[in-house]
């Protein structure tokens, strides 16, 4: 599987070559992060929101000569980030990105976190403020298994969202279409889109077959 196929379709006439920048292959990088790393490119400034254990930032630093910061709330993740030498700022994304100046970053990443944010619009606006481009990934609530569960009268529980309705951190679930409508409302121009299932791009009926959506956007 090449990076180009992973990159999925391109939007608005902009090419999405997904060409791999100079550097080592992603190796064990989580596949969706590998795709995001390809979109980001090399030698740029990156902000990773909800950076987890710093996997993406460490890879971008070591293989792509990127510089950047991660924001993370969980103690255990912050610890691993420090072990990796990743610049991690322990903070709650809900309290905003005040620490970061306008247009400080070439790319701002919010990976599989959007659906857990209380202030969805605010974090997206903040991403657009501090970065030249934003990259967002989220689980597709419109996946057919979810629809089937709803038809059966139950809230869906899936590998992407393995929680019961009463204890889920995922409070703002959406479909790719929903996200695109919000992005338009916020004045974002979507420059790349990938709809994935099992880490492969989905060509046929992606809105019900993709488990994960990844978008790159800019503010014009």
């Amino acid at each position, binding site marked *: 599987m090449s990076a180009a196929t992973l990159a999925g379709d391109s939007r608005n006439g902009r090419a999405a070559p997904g060409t791999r920048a100079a550097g080592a292959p992603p190796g064990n990088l989580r596949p969706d992060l590998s795709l995001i790393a390809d979109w980001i490119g090399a030698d740029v*400034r990156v902000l990773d929101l909800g950076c987890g254990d710093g996997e993406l930032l460490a890879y971008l630093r070591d293989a792509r000569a990127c*510089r950047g*910061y991660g924001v993370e709330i969980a*103690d255990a993740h*912050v*610890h691993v*980030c*420090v*072990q990796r*030498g*990743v*610049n*991690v*700022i*322990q*903070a709650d994304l809900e309290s905003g990105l*005040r*620490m*970061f*100046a306008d247009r*400080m970053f070439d790319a701002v990443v919010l990976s599989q976190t959007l659906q857990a944010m209380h202030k969805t619009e605010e974090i997206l606006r903040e991403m657009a403020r501090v970065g030249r481009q934003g990259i967002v990934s989220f689980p597709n609530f419109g996946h057919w298994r979810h629809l089937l569960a709803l038809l059966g009268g139950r809230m869906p529980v899936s590998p992407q969202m393995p929680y019961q309705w009463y204890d889920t951190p995922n409070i703002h679930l959406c479909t790719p279409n929903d996200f695109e409508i919000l992005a338009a409302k916020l004045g974002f121009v979507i420059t790349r889109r990938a709809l994935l299932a099992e880490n492969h791009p989905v060509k046929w009926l992606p809105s019900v077959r993709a488990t994960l959506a990844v978008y790159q956007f800019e503010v014009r």
Partner: protein
Amino acid sequence: MRAGSVGVVQAQSLRFAQPLALASGAQIADYSLMYETYGTLNADRSNAVLVCHALNASHHVAGRAADPPNSVGWWDNMIGPGKPVDTARFFVIGVNNLGSCFGSTGPMSPDPATGKPYGAHFPVVTVEDWVQSQARLADALGVERFAAVMGGSLGAMQALSWAIQFPDRIGHCVAIATTPRLSAQNIAFNDVARTAIQSDPDFHGGNFYAHGVVPRRGLRLARMIGHITYLSGDDMTEKFGRSRKGSNGSDDYQFGYGVEFEVESYLRYQGDKFSEYFDANTYLLITRALDYFDPAKDFDGDLVRALAPARCKFLLASFTTDWRFTPARAREVVQALIANEREVAYAEIDAPHGHDAFLLDDLRYHNVVRAYFERIAQDIAR
């Protein structure tokens, strides 16, 4: 040797004959600094770590002192073999600051001009002055560049000042429970403490040594007010609540003004203990150094420009219940470092112990410091 301890340590003293120009414009002609070292300086002298102390601490950072016997270093839980700052890998230096009262030249020392204790005449020194004097100690010990300079509270201010004043001599700055400058509230507490000392009749304008007395009541009060600010409200509730001293299970008030609550007893004990070993003039001097620290002052209050000279990497940590130097203050420093595109990791530790948390055992906090120093050790080994 106790496992995990550097064991018994002997403090040393080093005399500096060349005058040190101070920020105030005054100078100190001749001074000594007390210090301790732990671990071994490696062949390429790249593994040295300087530990800077806060208000009432000293050069005795780790291990057990030879004198007084068995007194344990103030950061012994952080520094030692196998501890977060591992003395099997790092050569650690603890230094007593100029103007303090644990053996380095200070207000208690004889003024060479008169032969009598400096007392009130000891010059006011700043955090920047301390850093300059510490750099001379580093020169004398053959340390051109520190792997890290670290400290908590006032010690963290010194670490930040190192990063600004000597960008080529410091690889990492580890600043715990820090602030870029004191708030009005912080200065107010310091002023109450100083007023307590200065209004004690035994203070004699700072020249109490000649009278053979110590302004013990003032020192005790200063320590009591200070101590309240080091703890969190929840921490005091947890420790003392409304428990009563020697009440023998009785819930009856005594309807008097003696020590009745446990918290009163505790604060007085802390105050009494402190007044027996700490110098009143040193208390004034160190709290004033705290008040004056403000690296942004020369840059129209712009901390970004103040930190622009720094080249090292940074670890900052703050504690959620620290209302003396709140996490918001530490974040100001982090923000200015990010604006300068400096490498920085920042941990905000959810700990109940207020400002004092930087001295206590907290696994999350210690794990982060340990992980950071392991990275430093890897960098050195490369």
